[in-house]
């Protein structure tokens, strides 16, 4: 039993899911769901379809080259079972995964970093310009900081007995 990769979106195809298409030149295309299958039939290039891993890698949204990817390689020769080796491998898989996930998040953060500064600048500007929507000029004069004003309690009106008829 093997987990395969979807040809279109590169997600894992678990056993019992998806469709395999074998072309006349004996190339096998595996799809994880009908969405990918239908896109393939429409002859769409996964490198141009935004939500696929191929696009993301090509356009630098996701990490492309890393040493963690070297660990996972399809070997065509079956290995004789070795308990120790298997135990080590299982533990190693977990650690490698963690490392990979960390690296990917770092990559993402690095990608998003320049945006953060810009966002902060924009936020500051907006605050400065639109503070009058939440703070009256009078309040602003009294308290020039760009924060919400202190709410003033309304005094109770005097009860005027206005009964004209008794």
């Amino acid at each position, binding site marked *: 039993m093997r*987990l395969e990769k979807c040809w279109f979106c590169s997600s894992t195809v678990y056993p019992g899911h998806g469709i395999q298409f074998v072309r006349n030149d004996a190339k096998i295309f595996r799809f994880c769901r009908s969405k990918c299958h239908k896109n393939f039939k429409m002859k769409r290039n996964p490198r141009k379809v935004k939500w696929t891993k191929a696009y993301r890698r090509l356009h630098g949204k996701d990490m492309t080259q890393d040493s963690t990817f070297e660990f*996972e390689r399809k070997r065509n020769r079956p290995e004789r079972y070795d308990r120790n080796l298997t135990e080590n*491998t299982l533990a190693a898989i977990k650690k490698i995964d963690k490392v990979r996930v960390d690296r990917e998040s770092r990559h993402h953060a690095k990608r998003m970093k320049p945006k953060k500064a810009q966002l902060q600048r924009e936020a500051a500007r907006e605050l400065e310009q639109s503070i009058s929507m939440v703070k009256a000029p009078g309040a602003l004069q009294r308290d020039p900081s760009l924060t919400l004003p202190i709410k003033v309690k309304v005094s109770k009106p005097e009860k005027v007995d206005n009964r004209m008829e008794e």
Partner: protein
Amino acid sequence: MVQYNFKKITVVPTGKEFIDIILSRTQRRTPTQVHKGYAISRLRQFYMRKVKFTQQNFHEKLSTIIDDFPRLNDIHPFYGDLLHVLYNKDHYKLALGQINTARNLISKIAKDYVRLLKYGDSLYRCKSLKVAALGRMCTVIKKVTPSLAYLEQIRQHMARLPSIDPNSRTVLICGYPNVGKSSFMNKITRADVDVQPYAFTTKSLFVGHTDYKYLRYQVIDTPGILDRPFEDRNIIEMCSITALAHLRAAVLFFLDISGSCGYSIAQQAALFDSIKSLFMNKPLIIVCNKTDLQALEGLSEDDMKLVMEMKSEAMKTLVGQGGEATDGSNVLLTMSTLTEEGVIAVKNAACERLLDQRVEQKMKSKKLNDCLNRFHVAMPKPRDQKERPACIPQAVLEAKAKQAEVDADKEKRKLERDLENENGGAGVYSASLKKRYILAHDEWKEDIIPEILDGHNVADFLDPDILMRLEELEREEGVLQGLEEDEDFEMDGAELTPEEQAALTEIRKKKSLLIQQHRIKKSTAESRPTVPRKFDKDKKFTSERMGRQLSSLGIDPSMAIDRARSKSRGRKRDRSSDGVESMDVDGDKQNKKMRLKSRSMSRSRSMSRPPGEVVPGEGFKDSAQKKKAIKIAKSSSKNRNKEARRGEADRVIPTLKPKHLFSGKRSTGKTDRR
């Protein structure tokens, strides 16, 4: 058996008919429609099918013709010769050969054209190929038309041949023309053969059946034979000669002793001499007919001598059969078909003679059955008491012993099957397939090998130096993380404080609210009249609200509220507002209503009017008239409002020709009115 097939030969159609039949069948039985838009393989297939179908049909029909017509070598020689005499063996064979060739040619044509069709690249080309193929096949048939016609003729004639069984009891009647053979035939059988005064009335063989001793006999009437050399004989005579030659029958040679047939006894005797070779091994009876005209005893000397000669010849055949005693009466008989005397005697004699001969022959062939009883194996008698066992060489004995050992081993070893049976049988016990694994440690044999972990294939990660590489990786990771931390300390300068953040979120909230309201207003401006602000339908413009809003902006609203109140029309009347804060929302609603009412009412002096009362004025005589006027006004505007018209002058039709009224079918009913 064989004779019946002549009637069952299929009709041979003429060339033209044949072509018509096959082509029309092709047209009926194969698909007829094809368009040039179809895939090329489909077009090819279509035309190939037609060609093949035609060829198959031709083949079939020609094969049946060839098979139905009898092969002259395979049938009884009597029929073979008869057919040869009638139709000429060579012509017959030639015709059938031509049919055969035609069949082969058609097959070849079809093969060639099918091969060509495989590479046809357009509808037109395929069609032309098919037309060419069929055309050639039809030409072949056309060329063979004369053979077909000839075979048809033969078939028709063959069907009318008398059904003679060459193996059963037959009595053959022969002699000169006009001697009385056919009349005799008519007398003893139910056959109705033509009897006429002229010679060659009977032109072909006729069969009748008669009974004798509970057995059925065929009686064959032949056309008369003239005394001519063999080569000069015509077809009719040849028929009778053939019959004489091939059929194992009793022969009745008819003599006309009165000479009224037109031929003398001498001529008849001469004929007898010339054909006596054909009477070999056949019981022969000389029959003197027409005794009513001339008795046998009254013959002249010469004639008598001739007759006696014939008799002696006939006796020879008798002697040849079974060595019977000289019974002259059975060989020479007299009769008269006209007076019917001696007819039955002749028949009986002939049948008797034939029967005897047949029985003898059958007896001679019974040797086979007797032989079978006499088989036995001879055992040699023992001559002394010495034992003489079989002699087996030493090497063979040793080999046998070794083989026995190996077999014993095999039996001792426990099979998987035995194990299975011990542990409960096929359904209960499942063999451990891992029993014979070769692993480094035996206790690993029963391990379940993991294949998948966390969305990865374990097999892809298996590596003997995985630990080493993992260590390297972790080191790398540690280094990278260090670098990361250094970088992170940089740019936290321009961050907003949480209060500022709160203010920003408020601002954004307000902006989105404004946008939403604008969107609502924008969409409904056309379809709904906007209530002017002074009527305050949603009751939004209250001083409490204003106070709240101002205070949220950070200003003390008390002054503004006071000002608004002083400018307002009336103060509210506290009915149940003890300790109720003006900020209380629920109380507000109740008070608002009252306040509105009180505002309108505070204008006029009296404040206690029932709700539906109409005050007279404005040009009306009294309240009743005013009420009526109000009612009329309302009723007129009611219909307008239902039509969603803004007023009298509003004659806008939003869509002049709505599509759903001017197009489309109706699910039920007719659409002749729109």
